């Protein structure tokens, strides 16, 4: 069974028929070549396949391709400037040595990008919570957290009893 869907990836419009059995990850990787989204666990636990759908971090391995109809999708391929210059979040990940094998990095950069673009303030605890859907099997979490904090400079509240935590 096929369904016609229209959506954009990194600003470019697509309009074609997808097999209803396919996940968005299948479509992004196999049909459109956006291999920055990784297939990890396949069951929504590791976050390696995360992309931004209408700005919201989403696991694409458990998101049916047909659901992408009408959505704006952003993958890691669409984060850097057109001239190849890295985004501030990407630079922070490089500067802090937050990239080891790199498998979890696209998802983490995208989630951090969404946090940055939200314009909201976060406590360190909230930041950890927001990144908790990404597993790094190299266990490089300290540097990842540092990179996220650097990306959100001026928007991370380090006070212990921040008003943001429960009363945001």
């Amino acid at each position, binding site marked *: *069974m096929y369904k016609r869907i229209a959506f954009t990836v990194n600003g470019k419009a697509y309009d074609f028929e997808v097999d*209803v*059995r*396919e*996940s968005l990850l299948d479509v992004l990787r196999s049909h459109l070549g956006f291999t920055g989204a990784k297939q990890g666990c396949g069951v929504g636990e590791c976050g390696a396949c995360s992309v931004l759908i209408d700005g919201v*971090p989403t*696991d694409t391995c458990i998101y049916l391709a047909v659901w992408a109809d009408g959505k704006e999708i952003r993958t890691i391929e669409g984060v850097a400037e057109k001239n190849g210059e890295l985004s501030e979040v990407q630079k922070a990940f490089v500067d802090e040595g937050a990239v080891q094998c790199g498998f979890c990095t696209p998802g983490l950069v995208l989630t951090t990008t969404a946090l940055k673009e939200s314009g909201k303030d976060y406590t360190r605890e909230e930041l950890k919570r927001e990144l908790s859907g990404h597993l790094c099997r190299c266990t490089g979490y300290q540097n990842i957290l540092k990179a996220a904090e650097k990306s959100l400079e001026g928007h991370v509240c380090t006070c212990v009893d921040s008003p943001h935590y429960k009363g945001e």
Partner: protein
Amino acid sequence: MYDIKGYYDAETVSEATALLAENPNLKIIAGGTDVLIKMHGGQLEEAELLSLRKIKSLEKIDLADDGTIVIGAMATFSMVFHNPILKDLIPILTEAAISMGGPQIRNIATIGGNVCNGATSADSASSLFALNAQLKLESKNGERVVPIREFYLGPGKVAINPGEILTEVRIDPEDYKGFAGHYIKFAMREAMDIATLGVAVVCKVQGGNFEEVRIGLGVAGPTPLRCLEAEEYAKGKKISSATLAEIGKLAVKSAKARTSWRASKEYREHLVEELTQRALKTAVVSAGGAEVV
């Protein structure tokens, strides 16, 4: 690829109930974080899916004029957590919502799906039990409202009839007004983990006594459950560590814990006894009572 034989989208509830009436074999899919995982694991084959994702009216979270809290079944856990009405009136549900999975899962998983999946470990369940939530089910032939305690029948089994769709989770004003509560999820990790035990309590306090207590437990039996004996005991009792200790003991009597690879029966019972008391201690203070030391 998922083992999907057919896929249908409904844009309104009446369209969905009409499609369901025509083909009762349709499997309803909401966020997909349970249904697609079951397919991935081979527990659901050749599925014909009816997606409710386009029914935007089911995402609404509202406070009715009479004080009834109405949560659309398609509201995601992120929507529940960030909703100011819920955070203000029933924080034990928003705390339960933020404890579930990780951000990407909360962004898509729905409260209606969590309930209809029928798992005892459903993170919303212990809070919804403690809040006496009512479930509105709609079919082509009409609608009915079922208390959540009558909805859970067994592991993965809920009292939804063929042709019915869960559309709303409702909480009556008399079930939350004047109550304060607390929710504790006990798990091995702080994120992306299934609860070893979930405890949600609400209480009303009057002059140093418990006026009313309700205790909801998840993963303490084949379905989420209430500790009715402990609740009955607590009524009118002076708030003291002795009372709390007795409530903890009675709560264990209502539990039907079993040994699984996550934890043994004995450990779960220990958790029930201890965490019920801890949750109540915090709830008492939020309800304006004195701290129990």
